[in-house]
């Protein structure tokens, strides 16, 4: 009975963790809706299949091996983690009530699922960037490698206590560890598969390929925004005392403020540039604000958080336009949202966290980028050699849905385009 408060604390922290995990899991639906809304109708079933299956594959791969690589029981060195499979037993009541600094204060199962949904989110970033041309199963095979090894290894370097962590690299909830990492892999994939047919004209002009269902894309944004409360809020890892509860609440406020500011600024900026209020930029702006604040959602006050998000909103618009100039075709803006805004976010840590150093942030970002880009590039190259990455020209013209999935997304509405 006298242990009840400690047990309650453990239970509350576990519950908080589980709810945050559910919110992050829900982001899978957000990515699916966002991407399904921003591709053409003829590639919609395929992108839905990708988003659903990548989530499933990520959960399995991370359970099997990814989690143990990222959080090894017994790491070999700051660079090389160990290798282990599946999950161990959960904490015993005795260990919990024993107290002391090392006593576990939440379920390790809750920890696992929270980490697993992060891995899935990283992979979701890639699917949008290669939409409408990368084949389904080569993509899913890449997902296996990505979630089993590529992502967990860099995750270990920072969050698993590896060398980037020791170096003082600071990334609270993953502006770089998750978002830019996903964007780096996406960049490798985009370079390897090339742009969609017809995206860039022979005279270098950029051709718009409008998405088929904008309400769906907007729903995706709202879902991601909602899920981000779990993403950042859960990354505090504890809520069960006054200080921690305040911290989580502040993270909620800052996350929301950054998203709001990123959205409004991107919309205003797009309007100034184009003369119209581009809804896809409104959406990308909100997401960029969220990515930008993710590296440090706790220390800034709400005003500063708004500014960090606002700059994210500017960055994403510029990045979208720039990538198109570079003929890097990213149908949903994933590289801009998660990559460009992620890099901004990681350096924005310097604004509010006195422990952050420019060099550590730079090294952490560079190392993560290099690893994610190169490792992804090599794995994709091998898959390309073995089975090919891209659909045939005819399949692309007629749509991946019929060829890969034997089905149309909107069989009663779709026109012959």
């Amino acid at each position: 009975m006298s242990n009840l408060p400690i047990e309650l604390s453990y239970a509350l922290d576990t519950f908080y963790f589980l709810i945050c995990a559910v919110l992050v899991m829900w982001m899978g639906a957000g990515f699916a809706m966002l991407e399904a809304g921003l591709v053409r109708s003829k590639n919609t079933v395929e992108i839905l299949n990708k988003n659903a299956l990548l989530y499933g594959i990520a959960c399995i791969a991370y359970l099997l091996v990814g989690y143990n690589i990222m959080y090894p029981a017994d790491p070999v060195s700051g660079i090389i983690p160990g290798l282990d499979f599946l999950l161990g037993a959960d904490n015993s009541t005795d260990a919990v009530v024993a107290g002391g600094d090392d006593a576990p204060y939440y379920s390790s199962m809750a920890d696992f699922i929270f980490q697993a949904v992060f891995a899935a989110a990283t992979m979701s970033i890639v699917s949008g960037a290669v939409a409408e041309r990368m084949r389904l199963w080569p993509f899913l095979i890449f997902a296996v490698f990505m979630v089993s090894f590529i992502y967990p290894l860099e995750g270990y370097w920072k969050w698993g206590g590896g060398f980037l962590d020791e170096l003082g690299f600071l990334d609270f909830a993953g502006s770089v560890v998750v978002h830019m990492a996903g964007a780096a892999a996406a960049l490798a994939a985009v370079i390897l598969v090339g742009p969609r047919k017809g995206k860039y004209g022979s005279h270098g002009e950029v051709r718009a390929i409008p998405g088929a269902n904008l309400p769906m894309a907007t729903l995706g944004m709202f879902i991601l925004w909602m899920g981000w409360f779990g993403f950042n809020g859960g990354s505090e890892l504890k809520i069960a005392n006054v200080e921690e509860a305040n911290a989580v609440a502040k993270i909620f406020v800052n996350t929301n403020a950054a998203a709001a500011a990123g959205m409004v600024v991107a919309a205003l900026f797009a309007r100034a540039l184009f003369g119209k209020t581009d809804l896809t930029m409104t959406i990308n702006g909100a997401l960029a604000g969220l990515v930008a604040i993710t590296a440090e959602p706790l220390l800034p006050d709400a005003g500063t958080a708004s500014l960090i998000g606002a700059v994210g909103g500017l960055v994403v618009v510029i990045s979208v336009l720039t990538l198109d100039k570079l003929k890097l075709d990213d149908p949903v803006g994933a590289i801009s949202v998660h990559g460009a805004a992620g890099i901004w976010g990681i350096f924005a840590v310097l604004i509010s966290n006195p422990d952050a150093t420019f060099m550590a942030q730079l090294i952490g970002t560079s190392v993560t980028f290099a690893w994610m880009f190169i490792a992804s590039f090599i794995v994709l190259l091998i898959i390309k050699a073995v089975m090919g990455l891209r659909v045939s020209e005819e399949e692309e013209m007629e749509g991946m849905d019929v060829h890969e999935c034997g089905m149309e997304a909107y069989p009663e509405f779709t026109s012959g385009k």
Partner: protein
Amino acid sequence: MKLITAIIRPHTLEEVRGPLQSIGVSGLTVTEVKGYGRQQGHTELYRGAEYRVSFVPKIKLEIALDDALLDQVVEAISGAARTGAFGDGKLFIQDLDQVFRIRTGESGASAL
């Protein structure tokens, strides 16, 4: 018998219907089409890239009718569909050899 094909602005469809019915046009067929003539489309914008939507949405009316009604119908459609700006549309007149009503098997003018 004649077949009139009219390409008109979508929102004038309702205005065209009334006059046609009072003249005694007993049926018509509507298709959603796109096209251009002197009116040359407009630009939209997507993620910063402008693109021409070169074909403007229009409504195509097809009306099979007795030669006697031809002038009146041309008049009626022209009147109701005219705004005076580019894009008002066109009327095409063709000969119609034969008409059948599927329900009864009637043919010729009585099938209209």
